[in-house]
């Protein structure tokens, strides 16, 4: 989840910086849940919340707050997070596509890196043997998804890890739903409506005709999806 680092108690300054950032990537923050990492000792927390909400962000919790700040947060119905252990670790070095931290800016957004190395959590791979039909959605939470049949147009398959389809992909496939940029999609015949890895997507119209109908693997290379024929 995105962490918003607040390095100033001056709401006016925060608003100016935030506006610049939103201008940079309009829509990116819309309805985005954010954690607040507050680096100053005192601040008008209620004022900050309403400022963020005005800008269509959804502040959900305080990240590693001071005890006093945590108390204030609870009164304002915010959650308090001391330590995050995502199921899949996002490499700390991974550049955030649109929000590179700007030095000496009071507000910096960045992907949360786990405070301690994440414990590998084993989740069994979900295996689907039946065709995934139009209107059906299958989500492998916290793991990989294997489909041993075609995925029809109008169907959607999602996984926090990789998506493997031993058949034609005609619907939508999303890998790394929780943000794992290393997740991949494999399919035997690419005719997808949409493919996405870690939120970066390509629609059917933009798929290179050279890989259409081919057996491919799809991965994220920087900010772009890379589709390679096998």
């Amino acid at each position: 989840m995105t962490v918003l680092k607040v390095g100033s108690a001056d709401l006016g300054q925060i608003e100016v910086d935030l506006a610049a950032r939103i201008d940079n990537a309009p829509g990116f923050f819309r309805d985005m849940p954010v954690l607040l990492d507050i680096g100053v000792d005192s601040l008008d927390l209620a004022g900050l919340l309403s400022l963020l909400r005005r800008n269509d962000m959804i502040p959900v919790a305080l990240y590693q707050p001071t005890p006093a700040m945590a108390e204030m947060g609870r009164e304002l119905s915010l959650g308090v997070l001391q330590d995050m252990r995502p199921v899949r670790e996002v490499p700390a070095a991974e550049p955030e596509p649109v929000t590179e931290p700007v030095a000496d800016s009071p507000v910096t957004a960045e992907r949360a890196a786990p405070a301690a190395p994440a414990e590998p959590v084993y989740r069994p791979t979900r295996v689907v043997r039946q065709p995934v039909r139009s209107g059906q959605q299958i989500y492998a939470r916290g793991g990989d998804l294997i489909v041993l049949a075609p995925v029809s147009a109008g169907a959607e398959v999602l996984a926090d890890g990789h998506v493997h389809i031993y058949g034609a992909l005609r619907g939508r496939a999303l890998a790394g739903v929780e943000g794992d940029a290393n997740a991949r999609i494999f399919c035997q015949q690419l005719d997808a409506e949409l493919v996405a890895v870690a939120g970066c997507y390509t629609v059917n119209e933009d798929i290179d005709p050279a890989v259409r109908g081919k057996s491919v693997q799809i991965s994220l290379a920087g900010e772009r999806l890379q589709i390679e024929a096998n």
Partner: protein
Amino acid sequence: MARIVVVTSGKGGVGKTTTSSSFATGLARRGHKTAVIDFDVGLRNLDLIMGCERRVVYDFVNVINKEANLQQALIRDKRFENLYILAASQTRDKDALTQAGVGRVLEELSKDFEFIVCDSPAGIEKGAMMAMYYADEALVVTNPEVSSVRDSDRVLGLLDSKTQRAEKGEKIKEHLVVTRYSAERVAQGEMLSVEDVGDILSIQLLGVIPESQDVLNSSNAGTPVIMEEESNAGLAYDDLVARFLGEDRPHRFIQAEKKGFFGRFMGR
């Protein structure tokens, strides 16, 4: 126990009622005691195509509501003594179909009949869900065009998840019926081929019914098209019924007729 077969498609106007009437007639003609039920409450059509619309006294909803018993409501076909029709109500809506009521009627029919054919309404609303709920097998009727194929795909998903068999962890046997097929238009690339449709839906092909003027004519006359011995559509339905009963028959009418001089010369 009877085999309960739902004829369904998702999309409207693809030939569900035509298929139900010919399929049921074909089964009865081969000596199997068959009942065909119109689930399209509010828009009854099956009785017209079966040619018994002037003999409807009680209907399916009357039986569900116990206003009539099955013997009163079943209409015996004049051509085949093994064939009975249960008409839909024209004056009710689909909320009149209750799961328990439908289950009770099907159970009672099962005692006496070998096959029960459920003619589903279009869509995926209550009437369609009731028609498929108790089915053992399904004929999925599809036209060779993309929207019909997608709707059929949706229905296949429901057959695999929202039926009594699915709830018990059993599988419904699904058969593909491609209707209104024109081999010439497929050859010209204007229509999906049987292979394309089969590939997308990945279920077993039971029959391909060619586009034919005879279907409309026989519907107007109240005669199921399977009874037209001269009609390609009728012959294709007869093949379909034979295949359903386990006979091995090659698929016909899926190749374009050769029209050129050379083609005619080479013959078949």
